[in-house]
């Protein structure tokens, strides 16, 4: 066994797993607060990548400015969607809201094709090209940065949910909306906040994914990989998103290296089936989650 090679493969798996975790976080944040499964997360991720592209190329902004603006654009999009599309659907069946998010994803793809056309593009480089070595082990610079950013964001969210008033309000709303109302929590504002933060997170993930794989109107398919992660980790668990993402990232890296690339998805979906059979609510999910 070549341990250096194994270590490098493992580090690569951790890095791509962290990207999955970050995207999965977007699913979790919305589900946790509003019990809505947002299937447009992949397309919002795509929107983040295209916003960054537009700010840098069309408006000529510096990358340090374009990055927060793209993330803020994601937040604004989340706010508008929640107020105009999701809130009027309160009280409607879960399937109706789910289908609404599917439609939202299609609209986003169509709008992207109209505005930026259908060509795949490379994002302007904002991470540099210098390789990163941990000891003797090579890690792709972009993957290393993606891992650090994802880890920091997830750690931040874990702390916010535990200690920040807004985070506690969100948890309270997730647990029992009526009780949260009676405690004086502004539940609609919590819904708005959840959508804004989740869409900002997805847009940020879009920057990282776009920096690695480029952007195109079909890049939202990455969101489906993250959906697998949240189903395994638990739809309402931030920790589940983290561990699920890392697990899938590692397994895919090992399977791809030692079995062959054609076995990556087979392995991932085998784990998904096993997870659903053993813990249908996810490794860290709440037991009473309603399955659709």
């Amino acid at each position: 066994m070549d341990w250096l090679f194994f270590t490098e493969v493992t580090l690569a798996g951790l890095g791509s797993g962290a990207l999955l975790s970050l995207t999965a976080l977007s699913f979790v944040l919305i589900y946790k607060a509003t019990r809505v499964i947002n299937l447009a997360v992949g397309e919002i991720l795509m929107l983040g990548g295209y916003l960054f592209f537009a700010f840098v190329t069309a408006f000529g902004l510096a990358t340090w400015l374009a990055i927060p603006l793209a993330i803020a654009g994601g937040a604004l999009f989340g706010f508008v969607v929640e107020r105009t599309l999701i809130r009027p659907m309160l009280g409607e069946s879960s399937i109706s809201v789910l289908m609404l998010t599917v439609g939202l994803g299609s609209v986003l793809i169509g709008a992207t094709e109209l505005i930026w056309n259908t060509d795949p593009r490379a994002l302007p480089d904002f991470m540099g090209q210098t390789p990163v070595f941990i000891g003797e082990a090579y890690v792709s610079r972009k993957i290393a940065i993606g891992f650090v950013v994802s880890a920091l964001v997830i750690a931040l969210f874990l702390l916010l949910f535990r200690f920040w008033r807004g985070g506690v309000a969100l948890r309270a709303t997730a647990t029992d909306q009526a009780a949260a109302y009676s405690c004086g929590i502004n539940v609609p504002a919590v819904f708005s906040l959840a959508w804004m933060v989740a869409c900002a997170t997805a847009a940020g993930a879009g920057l990282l994914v776009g920096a690695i794989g480029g952007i195109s109107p079909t890049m939202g398919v990455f969101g489906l990989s993250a959906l697998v992660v949240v189903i395994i980790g638990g739809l309402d668990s931030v920790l589940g998103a983290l561990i699920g993402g890392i697990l899938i990232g590692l397994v895919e890296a090992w399977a791809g290296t030692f079995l062959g690339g054609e076995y990556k998805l087979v392995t991932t979906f085998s784990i998904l089936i096993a997870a659903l059979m053993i813990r249908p609510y996810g490794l860290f999910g709440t037991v009473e989650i309603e399955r659709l």
Partner: protein
Amino acid sequence: MTSLNRRQIMGLAAGAGLASAFPGFTAYAQEKEIVIGGSIPLTGVFAFAGVAIEAGMSDYVKLTNEAGGIAGRKLRLAYEDTAYKVDTSVAVFNKLTTQNDIHLYYGDSTGFAKTINEELNRRGTILMAGASFGSELNNPEKYPFQFMAGPDYVEMFAILLEYIAKAQPGAKLVFVNSDTEFGRDPIEASVKRAKEMGLDVVAQIVTPPTAVDVSTEVLKLRRANPDFTIFHGYVLAPLPEFMSQAKQLGLKTKFMGTFWSMDNSLWANVGAPADGFMGVMPYRYYYDTSPDAPILEKIRKLRPTYQATGYMQGFLTAMLMGEAAKRTLAAGKELNGKTLKAALNSIKDFDTGGIIGVPISVPGNSVPVGRIYQFNAADKQMKPASDWISLKK
């Protein structure tokens, strides 16, 4: 609300009866045109190509009609978007061939070409080409009414291998392909061919269709340390990241690709990491000002901005369809799959107006010609790295 009296209803019924009894009566208005039908992917994963293909075909139709059409008949392109989905492509095919008298058709994928083949054989009235260069389609016995306006994927690899064998005999190669029908197509046959040519395929790397990060694949590439790495089954991603990481690791391998990953504008956006990327291209690029390419000059006048490689593919496909129709009508034959295919196969040393740099022949279902181009990041252009290479001389 409009209401019909009995006399009007009887009149309409008589009209309908006349139309069904004498099909020529309704077809009269259409008989002076040749319709090219198309299932074209204007949205979805292959939209970047579909949009360009439609532009290329439309421009050929426009130029031909301005020059008087084909044997006095005007050309018309009737197409719909398929989103690159086989079931939609089939539905579009059925719809368009019902609504129009179609003898020439453009399909969007290998999947569609295979699915519709039995129907083409059953009808025997249509000659079809498309966006697919699938090697399986390059079989005149199984696919008698289909062709492709360029080399099939195995032939593309053969052109690359021929170049490599001359440039560096005995070179070590790695093939990297996406885990799709498109990606897998030429791999097995090309491994065999490389061996016959004295080249050593030291590894084959497969990436899942949705791959974003390719770190683990790059690590495998480093272990194999080839002289040449040939990608197939991709448009752009994840090639730039693959090449960036390989450069970070100090690998000296030369990266190559096949037609659909050879568009100039895509690589121009990538910038420095794209420098040196090579690949096989069956057509000249939009900006080629060679004196023996008058059609490119016309295209530049029609469209002053860069047109993607799909444009040339669409243009040449329509040109070959038009030439087949022209030869069929000149021989006094009716347009159907058999006569059109025979006319197509009679094309020998044909001048494409410079879209391809050498005269071409269509002996079977493909045009086995290509040239190696290399991307120059400083000039942001693909530049010729070889002369035109014709297989099966």
